[in-house]
């Protein structure tokens, strides 16, 4: 199964071919389910002028925040800036171009990119800044705007377990944007916590079929928590 064995030896090898000016989609929501090691490798490589598509842009000093600090990102397509001070600073100063996109529209645009749908209509954003300069069209007497698919050169995703074929399952809410991201790039690179033997995953439980995955690595994860909330036992 050499042709289907998606395993590569390192994060370095996994990002072979990533160069300046490329577009990358990065899975994760906040710091949950982000490809920590692949992001670190993008940082190490120092590639610049990247367009990054990701719901968030990490936090100061972790996740995609690392790439912001090193000024590797020239354009960000995201739904949330939130508490990322460096992101907000670069946005307000105009150092980075930001295309703020509603979260559901962002997910759907990535999904469309992977599914061969070049564009779709949605009511989200009608009559708001998001709808400016977009076609508005009525269906059944309601207004919708046209939104376009997103595709990328690389997708960097994070799974829980994967078999050699690149079939992936996600753990809890670390799924989020990862399955969509996996479908929408020319080269999809997945890092997972555990690589298992083919046959170990139940076919009906697989979240991301291996057809979407080109390269697979196993990583060590810090899994930093953004907001630690607890109840007393």
């Amino acid at each position, binding site marked *: 199964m050499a042709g289907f064995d998606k395993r590569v030896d390192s994060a370095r090898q996994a990002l072979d071919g990533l160069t300046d000016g490329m577009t990358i989609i990065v899975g994760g929501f906040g710091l949950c389910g982000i490809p920590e090691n692949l992001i670190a490798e993008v940082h190490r490589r120092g590639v610049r002028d990247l367009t990054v598509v990701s719901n968030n842009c990490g936090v100061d000093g972790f996740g995609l925040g690392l790439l912001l600090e090193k000024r590797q990102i020239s354009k960000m397509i995201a739904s949330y800036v*939130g508490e990322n001070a460096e992101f907000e600073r670069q946005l307000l100063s105009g150092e980075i171009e930001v295309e703020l996109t509603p979260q559901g529209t962002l997910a759907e645009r990535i999904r469309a990119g992977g599914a061969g749908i070049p564009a779709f209509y949605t009511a989200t954003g009608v009559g708001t800044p998001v709808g400016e300069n977009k076609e508005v069209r009525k269906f059944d007497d309601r207004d919708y705007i046209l939104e376009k698919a997103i595709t990328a050169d690389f997708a960097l995703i994070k799974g829980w377990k994967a078999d050699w074929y690149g079939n992936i399952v996600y753990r809890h809410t670390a799924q989020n944007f990862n399955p969509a991201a996996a479908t929408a790039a020319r080269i999809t690179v997945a890092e997972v916590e555990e690589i298992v033997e083919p046959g170990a995953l139940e076919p009906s439980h697989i979240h991301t079929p291996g057809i979407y995955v080109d390269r697979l690595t196993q990583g060590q994860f810090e899994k930093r928590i953004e907001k630690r909330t607890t109840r007393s036992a």
Partner: protein
Amino acid sequence: MALTREQMAQRVASELRDGYYVNLGIGIPTLVANYIPPGIEVMLHSENGLLGMGAFPTEEEIDPDMINAGKQTVTARVGASIFSSVESFAMIRGGHIDLTVLGAFEVDVHGNIASWMIPGKLVKGMGGAMDLVAGASNIIVTMTHEKGGQSKLLERCTLPLTGSGCIRRVLTDLAYLEIHDRAFVLRERAPGVTVEEIKAKTAGRLVVPSDVPEMRLSNDANHGSPAHA
């Protein structure tokens, strides 16, 4: 007396019905989960891909892979399902959520809402809010009636919109109002708050029916976690 945040949550909670799938935004909306009336059950939806959000975890249960849309660590309750962001927003956009509760900077008589951006000042991003207001069949906005002496219930929103013509119900610390025919219709007053005060603090056109009862706030907090359901 203006309602406290907890009382606002309590009033919103009385709108819950048994079997509702509910999305609660960050802030006051989150507190609603503490006041679910006895005998009814709701399922909390979190945009990042969790339907059936449970209580906060104990220290031992904490799991970085189990968070809500506010990035807080949570648990999944019995009957929960977990899915992708694509599926999560298919639920929202497709109108499958029964009730959405979210905060706002401004609301106007046209049902417009502004909640995500103050130009040149605050850029948090819209996150899932635009999807929620466009998709939910049933939205309650919770916010203070004024901010810095300025009414937040306007004839026209001044800030960039989150959604257009989508809001019908607003709960403030002073009143519960519905939006009809380009006006706020005053339905309930916070206990001890006069119609005159509400009139004075509402910038958008206000319709005052002949009878405007005081709100009833009967539920006690069930002292669970904010994510109780």
